[in-house]
């Protein structure tokens, strides 16, 4: 049934694609926040929320690669060091970059 998409659905997908740029900014904000707060529990929790949301919606819109990466990064958040968390988030930002 997903073969033939209605113009409305296509419009939604278009809208989502365009919103990806915004989402990169959000991720970058998170990176800055984590660095600033030295990866304290609060900043990590917030990053987690953002990723959680992104994982859900990106999957729904067919961006399986983003979905997968988000889930992976979520599991690595707060893992060992600030750098690890930042690196992980940078990976997503890079991935999103190609959809800009």
């Amino acid at each position: 049934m997903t073969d033939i998409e209605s113009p409305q659905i296509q419009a939604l997908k278009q809208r989502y694609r365009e919103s990806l740029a915004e989402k990169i900014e959000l991720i970058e904000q998170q990176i800055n926040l984590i660095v600033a707060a030295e990866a304290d529990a609060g900043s990590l929790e917030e990053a987690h929320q953002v990723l959680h949301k992104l994982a859900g919606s990106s999957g729904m819109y067919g961006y399986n690669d983003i979905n997968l990466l988000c889930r992976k990064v979520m599991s690595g958040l707060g893992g060992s060091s600030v750098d690890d968390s930042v690196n992980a988030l940078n990976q997503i930002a890079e991935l999103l970059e190609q959809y800009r």
Partner: protein
Amino acid sequence: MEERRLQQQINEQLFKKLQLAYFCVDKSMRVTCFSKNLRNYGYDSVLVGAEIEEHVDFMIGLDAQTELDLPMVESPSGTPVAVSLLPSSGELTVLISDASGHAEQRQLLQQKANENELLLEQQHKLMGQLSLASKELESKNQQLEEASRLQTSFISGVSHEFRTPLTSIIGYTNLVKEDLLLVSESEPEVKASAQQNSEHLRAVQRSSKHLLSLVENLLDHGKLDSNEIFIRPKSTDLAELFDDVALLLKPLSDSKNIEFKLDIELTNSFMAVMDDSRLRQCLINLVGNAIKFTDQGSVTLTARLADESLTISVADTGLGISPENLKKIRLPFWQAADTGKAGTGLGLTITERIIELMGGDLDISSELGKGTCVSFEVPAPMLLETPIGECSTVSGSKVLLAEDDADIADLVAMMMSEAGVDVTHVENGALAIEALRDQPFDLVLMDINMPVMTGYEALEKLQESKNKTPVVILSASSIEADRAKAESLGCFDYLVKPVDIGDIFQIMNRVVDQESL
């Protein structure tokens, strides 16, 4: 004098005939006369003129005036005798006769009577002790019940604690594996090492899954008592399910060098409406058991799907079960002591209960040394694939969508309304509760992670207010513990994002099916 001698002779003759012995004593208890046959009874030292007390024990303490019958006295010869003391004019005549015939009979009768009475007494005493013991047992029983209740809640508690980290181990292993696949595609030179890593990961995953199934058995045992195990049928690909079970258990049978045979016939359609995870749990338990108790030969899993009914049997060539153990085997925690196999002893109890809940009966037949066959038959209704969109049940139904992410909400709402569903969208749990108070809905689609009020809280509120509207959770979390939490709060189903809109429609069909029952 002459007369007296004559008299004595006559007496002697008479007494002989009657087998009587006798002696006479005077006032001072000295012997005046006696019969010769007195010796036959062992009184052989009696002499005329002697003091009787010195020679005949039973005369001690008696005087010449005593008139007495001693019906049965053991004489020195061992023969029981009857003794009569007959005083006359200052003298005492003592008659002694054989009483052995009589004694034997009485001995038998008396012995019987006494033994009977002793038995009765003992019975009486035992009854008293029994009633005491039963009272004691009763209070013990109460203590045990209490202990068992504590044990159950302890087990549930501990299992929960175990389950969460375990599921995340499995989940993360999955993610790493997916990651490895990506790597191996992009960089051919690391392919080999990546492949080996993923082998290792698979091993980790298998062990974790096995551990998880043990923990789930424990957890289910707690639920058994409180009737908390539910069967949630959904469309199930049986072919895939059997493949899964085989994949999971093959390494186990390989490691024991026994053959694991699959004999599956599913006819044309293999999509059935069943609780796939419960069925999987049963199969893993049964096949796992069979492998555990088989040291050589094979384990065969047979499945037949026909007439909307699934027949499964698991046969092994293992140790077998003795008839008396066959009675105990279904008890929780029971383990054959002599086999030395480890486990929780819960698998079979839980499996039996689940099969019961699915509408079947677990049948176990076994022969010691030959092997065991466990089988059951459960209803397996075929899935009727209705083309979505034309589906009359979906079109026209009212759905409440609680989702804070606008991207997702808009997409889901759009797709559903294109299928003719009347969708109302709210942004959090609190608003969903409000909407449900205002008007009826056929179904609620609910996110977990929402501001103001989460999906969990909303589910709780709905349970409290006895609102029966089916709630389907749309969650980004594939972690089993989250699913379990939602299920314990009474959700109708749990879908992991990205959600396939077709799954939602299928669930809606099921809701309608259940309501029309």
